[in-house]
């Protein structure tokens, strides 16, 4: 057990900057681990922390609100003595090893002994003529989602710029409710950052079957307006795709401005070690903003990664809470992701980086199949489409350091669960049981 950070200092307690999945988990974990010092969780949004994944799904169907998506009840914060502060954007932080203070835009000052940054990410913007037009949206928070939901309801033609998870989820939902929807993707394939060519190709076909208009290798020239409102998207070939609503979903950028003020090392996010400690050795960071060594890729690349997922935010926040209290902790769970697009459920287990073999299990035309990724003969990840049994089997196998022989995995009559076996060489490195 190490020394807790920030004990004996003049200011007391932990300040967590960022009202989000990682922030609320960090606060909860501090209490679960027995911390009795004050905890303040501060963020700029008007809502108590809520789940973001439904913003591009159920929320846009009018089936959820920021309140219904809240992680914790107000009673929870009170009983656990977590001071929840909304509508305060922290703009300046100063600190030394004993503590420091954070200043909000309003001038309100938050002193702290321990500091955690769960500041998340902001949508990547593209400099595009017409971006200021009414009807052009980015999607990150519940306020933006509420406006988008309103506008989608009245829209006939919807254009989504960016064929990643967010873009396709919104596009598939709008299409299912009868809109004419076009997805413009600059790359030669969909979801290129996360999945293999096989999975990309399937999603292209599946969305086209559902009537989605998908343009790959698309060049967006400008957004065309009519009376301050968007009316279309002009492409490189001069054609204009009509649009009442445009959603731009081209990824996110980690928020690092506060970390920069503190002089912390930044490299695609706030660089932290396996204990979630930033380069000053006292500040912790977790979630979408943090670039952390990941045990699932300890033998691959530089072994570190910035992930944007619920599982990652939760896991890193638990580690960060333990570190603030001087309790040794490490990653335990396998990275996993999900994306619901129309009636297509994608579940991804593991990280496919550096795969040298891809095995197809099942028939993509049946819209129920899995893509298994191998590195040096060992299973490292899988994309499972409408195949929860495969997903659960792979996630559990990776968690236990097991593999599935590639030649046997193609036989869909045998459950993957039954095929899980001791992994060859890589097993010790691939997971941390």
């Amino acid at each position, binding site marked *: 057990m190490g020394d807790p950070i920030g004990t004996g200092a003049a200011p007391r307690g932990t300040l967590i900057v960022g009202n989000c999945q990682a922030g609320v988990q960090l606060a909860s974990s501090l209490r679960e681990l027995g911390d009795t010092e004050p905890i303040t969780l501060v963020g700029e949004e008007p809502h108590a922390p809520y789940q973001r994944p439904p913003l591009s799904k159920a929320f846009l169907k009018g089936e959820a609100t920021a309140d219904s998506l809240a992680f914790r*009840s107000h009673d929870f914060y009170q009983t656990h003595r977590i001071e929840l502060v909304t509508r305060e954007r922290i703009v300046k932080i100063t600190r030394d090893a004993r503590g420091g203070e954070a200043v909000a835009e309003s001038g309100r000052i938050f002193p702290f002994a321990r500091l955690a940054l769960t500041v998340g990410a902001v949508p990547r913007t593209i400099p595009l003529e017409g971006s200021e037009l009414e009807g052009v949206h980015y999607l990150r928070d519940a306020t933006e989602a509420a406006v988008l939901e309103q506008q989608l309801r009245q829209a006939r033609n919807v254009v989504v710029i960016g064929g990643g998870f967010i873009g396709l989820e919104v596009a598939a939902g709008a299409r299912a409710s009868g809109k004419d929807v076009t997805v413009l993707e600059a790359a030669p394939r969909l979801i290129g950052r996360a999945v293999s060519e096989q999975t990309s190709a399937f999603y292209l076909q599946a969305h086209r079957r559902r009537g989605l208009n998908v343009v790959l290798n698309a060049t967006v020239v400008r957004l065309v307006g009519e009376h301050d409102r968007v009316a279309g998207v002009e492409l490189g070939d001069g054609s204009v795709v009509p649009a009442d609503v445009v959603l731009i979903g081209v990824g996110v950028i980690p928020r690092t401005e506060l970390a920069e003020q503190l002089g912390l090392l930044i490299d695609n996010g706030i660089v932290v070690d396996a204990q979630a400690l930033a380069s000053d050795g006292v500040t912790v960071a977790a979630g979408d903003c943090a670039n952390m060594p990941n045990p699932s890729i300890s033998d691959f690349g530089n072994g570190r990664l910035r992930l944007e997922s619920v599982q990652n935010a939760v896991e890193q926040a638990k580690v960060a809470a333990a570190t603030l209290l001087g309790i040794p902790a490490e990653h335990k769970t396998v990275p996993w992701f999900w994306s619901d697009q129309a009636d297509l459920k994608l579940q991804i287990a593991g990280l496919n980086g550096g795969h040298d073999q891809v095995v197809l299990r099942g028939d993509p035309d049946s819209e129920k199949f899995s893509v298994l990724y191998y590195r040096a003969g060992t299973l490292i990840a899988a994309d499972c489409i409408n195949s929860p049994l495969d997903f*659960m089997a792979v996630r559990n196998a990776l968690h236990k350091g097991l593999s599935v022989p590639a030649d046997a995995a193609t036989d869909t009559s045998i459950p993957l669960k039954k095929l899980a076996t001791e992994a060859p060489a890589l097993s010790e490195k691939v997971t941390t049981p």
Partner: protein
Amino acid sequence: MPTVTYVAHDGSETIVDGFAGDSVMETAVRNGVPGIVAECGGSLSCATCHVFVCADSAELFPPVAGLEDDMLDGTAVDREDNSRLSCQLKLTDDLDVQVTTPETQV
């Protein structure tokens, strides 16, 4: 007001007042009940809200179906006859439910 009793693997009990329409999972998570993780927030993607429903409470809910059935086959602690994903168990007025949470969810 419905009441949910969560019995942890070690036998400790947490009793929570819930609201009709909320799930057994949401009621647990909002109140910080240990033993239910629920990473996917109820979208049937993670199977980390696995519970064993007490015999008296079992018939209060519609039976296991489709996706839930598949996901239950892969829970961290093996399923039993009374296994459910608690995100699929909706509370109704004046309904008292008791569930036991498994040793681990991941």
